[in-house]
């Protein structure tokens, strides 16, 4: 889009434009899969395992089937398929063996949900219990019980490396330089052991799917899924059905955050539909099932070691990440891989050894969440840097500055020279510390047991996707020169769709109201995109769209050149018209061109204009299986978070007073919606830092499967004071110079909060969430003097 409209300035790009779908949403008129019904559809209720690890001896559904309204009960043996995106390790319903409490063992199908629910309770399953494993440490023991005996037989993508005969679903190793030499040269070494809990995506619309397997062998799916094309291809692969016979529809999505990427329950619903006589069925999870049966977010334990020279150069970094993938790791294998290859974050470290595992345990399976692998590896890395700064008595900002990757100069952890136009991490760091006003912590003079402190953490991330991931886009003109924009990327509120529409309006100089992006994505009507994940949507689908715009422009100019008898090279398009360059008074409105041009005598040329464009990752590679070296991603977005928090030393309560978010996104296409991402990502990160954890009881059962005991941030917890800034270092091959950011905004939030606590108190918190109890305990252990002092001040204030 080299040509802004005739005024020379952008009319839409860079402007604060509300989301195009907001009108429907404020009325509650936007339709989600949750809302859809098909006449005559049946409802499905799942029956879950009550054992963490057991063989199924028998399933007796004789009572259930007699409940009025019940039409069928299906068990794993009826549909013995395995599915999964990176590793095909998931069953549709447990086949012979259950792997966690909550594992679906049977599906009841009924005319209404109430009947299905009633019948589900009457199903009797007999089990032969097996020894379970609940932690990665146990699962890695020599003689640990094995969850997946047939691991070597599962379909998998070549980037993944399971260890058959063990519980290791994936092993990844990143090797750069000489780690032993690096540590030998270090003047100081800091070490840490970190732990992150299992958490829930807590998207508001539950996972829900309607499937209709037809007599013709065609399958139609409606699903609350992020990636209709991935759903189609995985259904096709695992059920052995030609892709062209499967249609996946995705209307509005009530939140996904990665948890609805890849394949959900679509294969199960499709097979149930077939099983009940080719009738449509709807399968929707309850909130409790979202915690107990649906994939949640893996826990992690990590150990890390960082070696530095006296002057604060990081000379060696070693880390080991153990991801607790639960019973299935179809997506989590890629979380472990990503945490490994991106372990060095924004820093230029000459000697690196990062190992990363995804490990099966008898707990609820896991999947991607916003930025996966990065919130985890940054929680480790960014806190280690603060530990090193304290050890060396250096400023956390300065030590970061000294070690930052230099675009055009440095090589990344995976051995790629960082491109010149990759962004400006130094400026990002500078802006965060300026906006945060990087002063030293202070004690509240009124309440001396309360300390105010500031913390900082950086992040860098690009999409973690297969090297050949691709996208496409279509711009299709209507009679009134309005445009239907057809893209594959899904809409769960990220703002991508509005940004894309703005690009089209800008390119043709037409009002935004004349650009239509329909809410429905469908695999037979929308152009292909691999997935809507990884902050890739605006970048990859945006590039495809720009190519489609150019294609449409070429076609328009060709028609106009015949109409005006002027060479195509002498035409330009702006303000909804085709102009002759240098003679703007000679023009034709687009309306007269886009369905073909008609001469005064009635003859005509051209025809309806449709522009087509595409994008493929291109230069990304598989990573070397021994060293992890290679080019993993199509762009990097540098950024980071600064926080000011209030810490109550006596109660352990943390209050966020101020949040700074700075990201180098190349070009801010819509600052209003970008701020929405930065704020939403901050609060999600803060909620993860302070509140969120799935608790398992001693039997491996989720003890808090609801929003009373799994607390997510509410309005009263959220800060008001934000300073958000977007640095604009253009990415030469990005759409209008832009980069993705939807996930980045959450990555550095938890560790920035931990760093603020550390800075003021010297109390290092290496485990989330930072609950008041955990913080008070840590303060009393690590800084009893501080606690005593605060306590004394409190007592003094009483008298």
């Amino acid at each position, binding site marked *: 889009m080299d040509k802004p409209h005739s005024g020379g300035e952008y009319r839409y790009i860079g402007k604060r434009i*509300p*989301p195009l*779908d*907001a*009108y*429907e*949403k*404020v*009325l*509650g*008129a*936007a*339709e*989600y899969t*949750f*809302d859809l*019904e098909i006449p005559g559809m049946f409802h499905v209720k799942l029956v879950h395992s009550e054992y963490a690890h057991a063989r199924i001896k028998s399933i007796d559904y004789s009572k259930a089937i007699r409940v009025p309204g019940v039409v069928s009960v299906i068990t794993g043996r009826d549909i013995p398929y395995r599915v999964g995106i990176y590793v095909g390790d998931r069953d549709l319903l447990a086949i012979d063996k259950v792997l966690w409490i909550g594992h679906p063992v049977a599906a009841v199908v009924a005319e209404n*949900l109430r009947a299905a629910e009633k019948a589900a309770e009457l199903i009797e399953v007999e089990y032969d219990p097996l020894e379970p494993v609940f932690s990665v440490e146990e699962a890695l023991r020599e003689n640990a019980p094995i969850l997946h005996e047939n691991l070597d037989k599962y379909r998998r993508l070549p980037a993944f490396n399971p260890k058959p005969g063990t519980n290791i679903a994936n092993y990844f190793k990143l090797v750069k330089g000489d780690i032993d030499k690096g540590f030998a040269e270090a003047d100081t070494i800091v070490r840490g052991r970190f732990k992150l809990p299992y958490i829930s*995506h*807590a*998207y*508001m*619309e*539950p996972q829900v799917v309607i499937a209709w397997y037809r007599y013709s062998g065609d399958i139609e799916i409606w699903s609350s899924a992020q990636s209709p094309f991935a759903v189609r291809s995985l259904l096709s692969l695992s059920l052995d059905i030609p892709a062209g016979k499967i249609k996946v529809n995705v209307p*509005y*999505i*009530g*939140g*996904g*955050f990665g948890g609805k990427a890849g394949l959900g329950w679509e294969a199960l619903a499709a097979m149930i539909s077939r099983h009940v006589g080719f009738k449509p069925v709807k399968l929707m999870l*309850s*909130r409790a099932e979202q915690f107990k049966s649906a994939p949640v977010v893996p826990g992690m334990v990590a150990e890390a070691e960082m070696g530095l020279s006296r002057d604060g150069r990081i000379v060696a970094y070693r880390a080991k990440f153990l991801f607790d993938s639960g019973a299935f790791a179809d997506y989590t294998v890629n979380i472990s891989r990503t945490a490994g290859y991106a372990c060095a974050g924004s820093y230029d470290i000459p000697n690196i050894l990062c190992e990363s595992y995804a490990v099966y345990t008898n707990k609820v399976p896991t999947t991607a969440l916003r930025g996966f692998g990065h919130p985890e590896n940054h929680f480790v890395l960014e806190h280690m840097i603060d530990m090193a700064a304290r050890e060396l008595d250096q400023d956390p900002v300065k030590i970061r500055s000294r070690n930052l990757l230099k675009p055009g100069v440095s090589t990344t952890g995976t051995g790629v020279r960082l491109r010149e136009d990759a962004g400006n991490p130094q400026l990002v760091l500078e802006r965060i510390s300026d906006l945060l006003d990087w002063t030293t912590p202070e004690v509240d003079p009124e309440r001396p047991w309360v300390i105010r402190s500031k913390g900082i953490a950086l992040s860098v991330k690009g999409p973690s996707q297969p090297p050949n991931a691709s996208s496409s886009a279509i711009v299709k003109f209507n009679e009134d020169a309005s445009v239907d924009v057809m893209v594959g990327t899904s809409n*769960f*509120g*990220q*703002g991508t769709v509005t940004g894309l529409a703005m690009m089209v309006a800008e390119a043709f100089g037409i009002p935004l109201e004349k650009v239509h992006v329909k809410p429905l994505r469908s695999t037979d009507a929308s152009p292909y995109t691999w997935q809507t994940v990884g902050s890739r949507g605006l970048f990859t689908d945006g590039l495809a769209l720009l190519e489609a715009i150019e294609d449409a422009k070429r076609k328009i100019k060709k028609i106009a050149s015949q109409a005006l008898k002027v060479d195509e090279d002498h035409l330009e398009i702006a303000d909804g018209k085709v102009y002759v360059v240098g003679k703007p008074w000679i023009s034709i409105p687009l309306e007269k061109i886009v369905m073909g041009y008609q001469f005064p005598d009635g003859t005509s040329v051209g025809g309806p204009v449709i522009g087509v464009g595409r994008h493929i990752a291109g230069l990304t590679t598989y990573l070397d299986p021994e060293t992890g070296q290679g080019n993993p991603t199509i762009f990097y977005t540098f950024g980071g978070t600064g926080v000011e928090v209030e810490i109550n030393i006596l109660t352990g309560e943390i209050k966020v007073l101020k949040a700074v978010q700075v990201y180098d996104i190349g070009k801010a296409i819509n600052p*209003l*919606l970008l*701020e*929405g991402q930065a*704020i*939403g*990502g*901050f*609060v*999600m990160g803060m909620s993860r830092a302070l509140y969120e954890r799935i608790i398992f009881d001693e039997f491996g059962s989720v003890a808090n499967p*609801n*929003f*009373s005991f799994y607390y*997510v*941030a*509410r*309005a*009263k*917890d*959220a*800060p*008001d004071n*934000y300073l958000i800034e977007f640095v604009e270092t253009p990415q030469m091959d990005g759409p209008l110079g832009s980069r993705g950011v939807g996930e980045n905004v959450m990555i550095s939030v938890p560790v920035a909060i931990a760093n603020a606590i550390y800075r003021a108190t010297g109390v290092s918190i290496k485990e989330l969430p930072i609950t008041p109890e955990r913080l008070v305990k840590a303060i009393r252990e690590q800084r009893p003097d501080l606690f005593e002092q605060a306590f004394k001040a409190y007592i003094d204030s009483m008298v």
Partner: protein
Amino acid sequence: MATITLKVNNVVRRVEVEDNEILLDVLREKLHVKSVKAACWRGECGLCTVMLNGKPVKSCLVLAVEADGSEIVTAEGLSGRPGELAPIQKAFIEHAALQCGFCTPAFVVVAHYLLTKTRGKVEREEVKEYLSGLICRCTGYKQIIDAVMDARKHYGGEG
């Protein structure tokens, strides 16, 4: 089984319900009123909130039979004029106070009630407290609160 009468967004509806059926299910499943959402079915997320005789209630906690004879308003009926928006809905659009939009119908209903009840005279902290019965996982709340604060002027407050 009982037959109840409800006035939903100004339209009279009669429907057969079971004694233990919740209002939420009757609205969504039997009357196909989809502008009511749900995310927990146990009173924790607030997304099933509707106006029942002028007061916000969580419709998953109300038995349908108890609502017999009452008037129910949801987001689509909030302005009282079909297809038109209440001021709070316009403010939500302007402030981009929504992302996935799944929570939005409940937030606008509750915010509209608060602004109407207080005639727009309400402070930021009160708004935050009042809206804390609802969950939004996407927005981080700030733009929602901003929208409510900004809409106060249309309800008699200062804005």
